[in-house]
């Protein structure tokens, strides 16, 4: 059964959850509310083996809701900073991260806009992006699909390696490079086009391929002439999100005015 009244945030959560469908027994990290709730949804439904954390130093038996906690979660293990790198360098992790810029190769940036020595905008710094990108699967969420985010040439500072032959060693992509999904406010994409070209695999209701292409700084592939619509959340998924994964409704604050997921109906 499909609930027809769902928000864009909830549509994105369900799309993010898909990134973890076949993740196996690995650490998952969803950066930002929607990827985190998406990881929680995956854990409570089709990917029960994944390990979530309290966003500090402990693994939890159940996903921890963003915001105020009703009760202390049950802890199932220690995820100290040291161990996080041991785990991620081993490949047993899947991260869903939120870069500020991404390019046609999947190279991603959270460091600076402009020149690295004297940036126009200094952001966080590379964080763990370089190591993540060559160690384990990575997926992305970008809340505003536009040409400032999906840039025309390379990102201003390549924090995360991508499928860019010009940066390969000895002509081969880094062994651990495995970029999976890109979820945005318009669509879901993967790297399944020719030579890892970014490809639209589903369009959110009411969005056309042309809408997506116009807001992207590079040419996109398409999975089929007739691109599927991003699956709407089921009533069961909406219930789990509302009661167990995001009871504080943090998801409602992610997109301005918390728009409906089905723009056709709106």
């Amino acid at each position, binding site marked *: 059964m499909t609930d027809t009244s769902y928000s864009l945030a909830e549509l994105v959560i369900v799309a993010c959850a898909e990134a973890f469908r076949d993740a196996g027994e690995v650490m998952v990290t969803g950066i930002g509310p929607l990827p985190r709730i998406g990881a929680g949804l995956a854990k409570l439904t089709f990917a029960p083996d994944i390990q979530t954390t*309290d*966003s*500090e*130093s*402990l693994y939890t038996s159940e996903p921890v809701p963003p*915001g*105020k*906690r009703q009760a202390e979660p049950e802890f199932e293990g220690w995820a*100290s*900073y*040291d161990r996080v*790198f041991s785990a*991620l*360098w081993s490949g047993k992790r899947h991260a869903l991260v939120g870069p500020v810029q991404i390019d046609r190769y999947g*190279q991603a940036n959270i*460091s*600076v806009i402009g020149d*690295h*020595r*004297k*940036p*126009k*905008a*200094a*952001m*966080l*710094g*590379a*964080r*763990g*992006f*370089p*190591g993540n*990108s*060559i*160690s384990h699967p990575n997926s992305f969420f970008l809340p505003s699909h536009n040409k400032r985010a999906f840039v025309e040439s390379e990102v201003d*500072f*390549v*924090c*995360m*390696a*991508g499928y*860019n032959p010009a*940066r*390969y*060693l*000895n002509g081969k*992509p*880094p*062994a*651990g*490079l495995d970029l999976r999904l890109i979820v945005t406010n318009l669509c879901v994409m993967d790297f399944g086009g020719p030579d890892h070209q970014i490809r639209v695999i589903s369009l959110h209701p009411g969005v056309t391929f042309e809408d997506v292409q116009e807001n992207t700084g590079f040419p996109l592939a398409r999975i089929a002439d007739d691109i599927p619509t991003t699956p709407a959340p089921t009533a069961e998924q909406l219930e789990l999100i509302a009661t167990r994964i995001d009871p504080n409704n943090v998801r409602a604050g992610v997109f301005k005015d918390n728009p409906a997921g089905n723009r056709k109906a709106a």
Partner: protein
Amino acid sequence: MIDKRMTIDEIVDQLSDGMTIGIGGWATRRKPMALVRAIARSNLKDLTLVAGYGGPDVGMLAASGKIRKLVFAFVTLDHYPLEPHFRAQRQAGAFEVLELDEGVFHWGLRAAAMKLPFLPTRVGIGTDIIRQAGFDFKMVKSPYADGEEFVAMPAIAPDVALIHAHRSDQRGNLLTLSPDPFFDELLVRASGKAFATVERIVPTAELNMRENNRFNLVERAMITGVAEVPHGAHPTSAAPDYHLDLKHIKAYVDSAATPDAWSEYKAKFIDVPHDAYVAAVGGAATIEAAPAAIY
């Protein structure tokens, strides 16, 4: 009997212009802020700051004009993702940077701790980390049959490490009681000297090492000096003793709004001895009453 007890000022007297100083902790957790404030109000200059996991330590020293070069992987206040003072100074081109991945940063510390010139890693391949102006990264080829090429991550060896821990005895036997020690141990091992501020200095027996040995950060031979500085990590957290003070973090963030706001903040919270600082932020009881932050 070894006695490594010092004061904040005695530790700062051990520092000199142009030094490479490593700072432990992680963003808003267990930063040796009393020492950072003492450096900020000192005459020290041209420091190379090694702060892989940067927070208000980096921002405060940047705003105070102390940094010549910053070695880091990120600077954030977590609940306020963008550190405003770091941001402003970085955008002004006020200091050079060597930007690293947060995992490979600890690899550099580990190399220095083991007295190795480098350690091989795949981290950095395919990125601008290995193409930046801050350092000329070299590659190294596996001598074995695989022949794989790696980034040779150079040793990161600060002159001095500054960390904050919970307990110590006068000999420098430390307990770091927080949920995560981060890479303070490697920072200490990588550095020429290491100074720790601690919440309390207690007799060795009170460390209860039979029960607490897993919290013993590093053997005392690596620790040069310890200073008893209650609330010395404030406004960052030193859980379980006290938590992040989000109210003060907000005041600190607001101080980046204008030069006047910064002068006011500096006069009230930095250009004063630690006791006066604790009083200015509301006193010990207020610090200890802050609820645990939610992530």
